[in-house]
């Protein structure tokens, strides 16, 4: 094999390209989108889980769970209608964790190193990655809402528009949590722990599958845990937004959790202070 020489000659007068944050952002978004489109099974896999809940579990639970009229609902709703915002949140939660898994994989495989050696602020690179993951999450969430619409679970059309910022904030918050976890997880094998100790408790201790007043009937303590869970508030934000309504508490908690998780993730990835600095 022979290799021709790559010329690296560059006169001193030539200006070296300055790293441009938005060029990097577009490239990272494009890369994630291409990877997503290239992995045909990923969309199907992401949708199967909530669809099984919707088509199978919800049908079974419908009879068992009586739902009273609580905001944003103005009338009795079927269980299927109740859980659609929760299942949309489930997509964002699992995708946020999937991003975390892929970050750990990237770090082990090296492509994370490539990203972190780009001449841009590290917080910006992490934010780009977070934004790209959230973008994919939102696409999946809308794909799920479209299937639910075809199944007959429909929200006011304005709700689908109003849900966009809610989905974006929820996806960012859960993606930031994934980012934080990826800075804590040393090896890919430890990811199973994330499933058991983060995803499942977050999902089941929330209002995704049952309203909190229902949980309070079983245990006020569990209800308090659900209330403290930021995923509950992300789900409620989406639920209200789908009816074009705001929920200030849900917005505040979701936004606050995003800031907290994102700040901790930036700290975790700081080359001087974070967890990565302690890795061999």
């Amino acid at each position, binding site marked *: 094999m022979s290799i021709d020489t790559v010329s690296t000659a560059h006169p001193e007068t030539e200006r070296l390209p300055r790293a441009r944050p938005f060029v990097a952002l577009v490239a990272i978004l*494009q890369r994630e989108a291409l990877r997503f489109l290239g992995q045909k099974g990923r969309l199907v896999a992401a949708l199967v889980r909530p669809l099984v809940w919707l088509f199978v579990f919800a049908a079974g639970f419908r009879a068992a769970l009586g739902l009273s009229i609580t905001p944003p609902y103005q009338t009795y709703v079927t269980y299927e209608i109740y859980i659609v915002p929760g299942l949309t949140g489930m997509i964002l939660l699992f995708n946020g964790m999937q991003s975390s898994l892929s970050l750990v994989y990237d770090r082990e495989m090296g492509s994370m190193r490539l990203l972190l050696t780009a001449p841009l602020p590290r917080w910006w690179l992490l934010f780009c990655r977070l934004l790209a993951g959230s973008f994919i999450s939102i696409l999946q969430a809308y794909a799920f809402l479209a299937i639910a619409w075809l199944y007959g679970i429909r929200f006011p059309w304005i709700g689908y528009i109003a849900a966009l910022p809610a989905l974006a904030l929820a996806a960012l918050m859960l993606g930031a949590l994934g980012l934080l976890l990826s800075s804590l997880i040393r090896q890919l094998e430890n990811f199973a722990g994330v499933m058991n100790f983060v995803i499942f408790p977050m999902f089941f201790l929330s209002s995704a599958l049952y309203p909190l007043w229902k949980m309070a009937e079983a245990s006020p303590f569990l209800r308090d845990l659900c209330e403290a869970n930021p995923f509950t508030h992300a789900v409620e934000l989406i639920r209200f937004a789908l009816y074009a309504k705001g929920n200030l508490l849900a917005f505040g908690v979701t936004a606050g959790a995003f800031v907290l998780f994102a700040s901790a993730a930036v700290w975790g990835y700081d080359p001087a202070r974070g967890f990565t600095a302690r890795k061999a």
Partner: protein
Amino acid sequence: MAGLKIEGITHDWGARRALDKVTLAVEPGRFCALLGPNGAGKSTLFGLLTRLFVPQSGRIEVAGHDLSREPRAALAQMGVVFQSSTLDLDLTVRRNLLYFAALHGLSGQEAEHRTMAALERLGMAERAGERAGALNGGHRRRMEIARALIHRPKVLLLDEPTVGLDAASRAAIVSHVHDLAKEGLTVLWATHLVDEVHADDRLAVLHRGRILADGEAGEIGGDNLSARFLSMTKEAA
């Protein structure tokens, strides 16, 4: 001197000292081999040079830029080929290079032009549309070297870039990177393979986190660098 300067770098992993007052200066246009057995501290040093983490003491200067004070300017002048492949195997060769170009601020025609020029020079233009995962090990390494040069860095760091390659691919890549140094690029080549070092190369022998020898390879190794390297690392053990 605006090549690569490493001054008094010390780094511990818990109670274990990975690097102990490592000092090394590579002048521009020089090929410097960083020779060390497994566990010598080469990967820790590369982690510090690429700012994946920062040293507990000492300083690093890349093309005149202090890595801790001006990290972005220093990183902009640095091309890196990591030991493990950092290619996105699902994407095409061209897409991989364009992605990297964008991380360094290159876009549009300029990025396309430099990507295609780099691939052409490496004889890989016809592979531009192929998935990176479909390339063999030698071609992937060529592609990574081409990618590391897209932004025209002044310093090129390679961490055991020939691991897993067959003899012919290894020889071609070693010779190619030596040519790059002759054209003015500062090269730091980490390896544990003595036959990748030429007699007129700059050589730094790293063992157990300390520099045991630093100078012209021919002077350090005499007529048998391999034997000298083995005796040095045995003496120090």
